[in-house]
């Protein structure tokens, strides 16, 4: 009987007693840390400018003008991959970002969740196969998604059905960090109320977000992580426009009534989120994906029989060898 997915927020510390060194965290001095982020959200919430602002360069250029002929037809969801090499405080990061335009933009969006789940699982499956090869590929690139940034519409009310379904369906496969896109449409009070309402919904529906506090061993870090969780969901304002002022180049959104600087921590949580994603918590996010989410998936898959002993896979010799390796390792 397959074990049910463990509640992510409760038993993690016990499962994490001894983090297993992953042979696939291929940290090469040349290539940098492999880090994969997925961006999910309806169009118009700022995914593209988020990526550009995160990487401090135009990774995705502005799209062409929409074609009036196809306004009534939703584009099917795509998985667009962008690779960027970053250097953050001396650490090189080989960042891959997967954008998912088309999510939630159609009349009927119930298919989107399955597509996302299939994609994430496919990356796990690749590693599963790779791990069990006798001759492993030294140059193997890990495509497992370490973080999913989910963009919430700034309604000011609380979560919508689409938001709840997404987090509920995908939380067991990937670290989900919710952000409020276009947060400049909310006043300070509205933002505070909205964050509160969203977190109440998260609790009420027991939605599995990434728990910053999963590692309870370091009490200092735990305290810091509790404070970070108070910011959730992170309010995000991003843009392409860069201007020069007395402090150098800054990204701003300019309105007739004033300008908002994207990096200003008093105006939005982008700077904090960026630091978390690319500096302070990058190791945590990768570790949790590899050591918990992936391991849970692997256990479920093997017990259910995706790679069961002596079953199927007779097409190639490789597969037979892999099965033998798997069955011997299970006897350990």
């Amino acid at each position: 009987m397959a074990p049910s997915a463990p509640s992510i927020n409760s038993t993690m510390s016990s499962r994490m007693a001894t983090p297993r060194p992953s042979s696939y965290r291929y940290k090469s001095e040349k290539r940098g840390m492999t880090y994969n982020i997925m961006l999910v959200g309806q169009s118009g919430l700022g995914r593209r400018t988020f990526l550009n602002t995160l990487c401090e360069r135009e990774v995705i250029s502005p799209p062409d003008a929409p074609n009036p002929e196809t306004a009534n037809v939703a584009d099917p969801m795509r998985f667009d991959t962008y690779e960027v090499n970053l250097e953050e405080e001396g650490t090189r990061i080989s960042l891959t970002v997967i954008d998912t335009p088309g999510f939630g933009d159609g009349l009927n969006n119930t298919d989107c969740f399955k597509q996302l789940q299939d994609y994430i699982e496919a990356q796990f499956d690749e590693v599963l196969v790779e791990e069990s090869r006798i001759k492993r590929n030294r140059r193997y690139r890990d495509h497992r998604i370490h973080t999913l940034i989910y963009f919430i519409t700034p309604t000011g009310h609380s979560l919508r059905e689409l938001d709840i379904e997404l987090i509920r369906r995908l939380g067991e496969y990937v670290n989900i960090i919710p952000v409020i896109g276009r947060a400049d449409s909310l006043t300070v009070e509205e933002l505070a109320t909205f964050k509160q309402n969203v977190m109440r919904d998260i609790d009420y529906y027991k939605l599995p977000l990434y728990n910053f506090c999963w590692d309870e061993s370091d009490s200092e870090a735990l305290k810091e992580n509790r404070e970070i969780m108070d910011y959730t969901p992170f309010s995000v304002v991003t843009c392409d426009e860069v201007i020069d002022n007395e402090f150098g180049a800054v990204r701003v959104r300019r309105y007739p009534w004033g300008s908002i600087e994207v990096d200003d921590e008093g105006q939005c949580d982008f700077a904090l989120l960026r630091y978390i994603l690319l500096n302070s918590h990058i190791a945590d996010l990768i570790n949790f994906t590899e050591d918990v989410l992936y391991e849970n998936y692997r256990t479920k898959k093997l017990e259910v029989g995706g790679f069961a002993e002596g079953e199927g896979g007779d097409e190639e010799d490789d597969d037979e060898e892999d099965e033998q390796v798997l069955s011997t390792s299970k006897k350990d």
Partner: protein
Amino acid sequence: MSAPANDVQDYVGFDTITQQMERKFLKRGFNLNVILVGESGMGKSTLVNSIFASHLIDTQGRRAAQEVIRKTTEIAPVTQMLEENGVRVKLTIVDTPGFGDQCNNEGCWVPVIKYIKDQHAAYLERELKPNRERIIVDTRVHACLYFLNPGSRGLRPLDVEVLKRLTEVTNVIPVIAKSDSMTIEERTAFKRHIKEELAFHRIMLFPYASDDDADDDRVLNASIRELIPFAVVGSEEVIEVEGKLIRGRRHGWGVINIFDETHSDFVHLRNFMLRTHLSDLIEVTSQRHYEQFRTSQLRQIKELRAQQAAAAASGGAPPVPTQAQPQVPISVMQHQPMAQV
């Protein structure tokens, strides 16, 4: 004795009809019915409360976690009497909570279209009664504010589907209610794309070209069409800025005054709806949308009765109607002389 005063009386006095009509109107008052269509959180209730400068409706958005997520579009009309300088209006705002809020929004417009058609049907039924009321209560929808999503670059598939259907039954005014997260360039580009898409999909908005009677009407309507969709910001809050009280929103980086024309199209929308085109909205509803509905209904009834007559003449059972049933019950039609149909 002085010379007799002139008594030719060239001035007839029919020009006082405007005052007579005004007096009648003041006594009677009028009905105004506005429907709001858009996803929750688009700023519908705030905008309508701002336009009429009173707290008419509460937001229907889900706030508490225990509130159930709506599975269908509900129709929630709220009626209030407003008065200004002796003129009374019975204002009905119809909110549509649940519209566009689900993962699967196919058909979410059906309750909205049905509501609008039901009001036409109710009016027709009253009109066709042999002993009808002197003044028929008008619940027909005079204007539909359709809320577009700021941030989208143009119409979404849901918008196209719904706007096509809405514009067939009522006057539609598209607005972007929370436009304070769009820069001026973004707004301009958005409006341009929307206009192209509306033209391509042949979606006809109020004011219609046929209403351009006089030259100044044409000029005014052209300037309205330039602005559509209206990029507005609504607010029920009064805030103080440098000693002055304004109605607006205070952000960390600036204060928005909803009446400032450089900040939003709010003033233009309000003037359009209430100060220049209010009587047009009501008249066009009656003359265009209601008439279209009435014509198609009466035609259906006529065909149905012809089929029934033919079946009766040939001695067979009345045929099962193959096309849509007319909404107005045929019994009301009994005394209607066929010649008029």
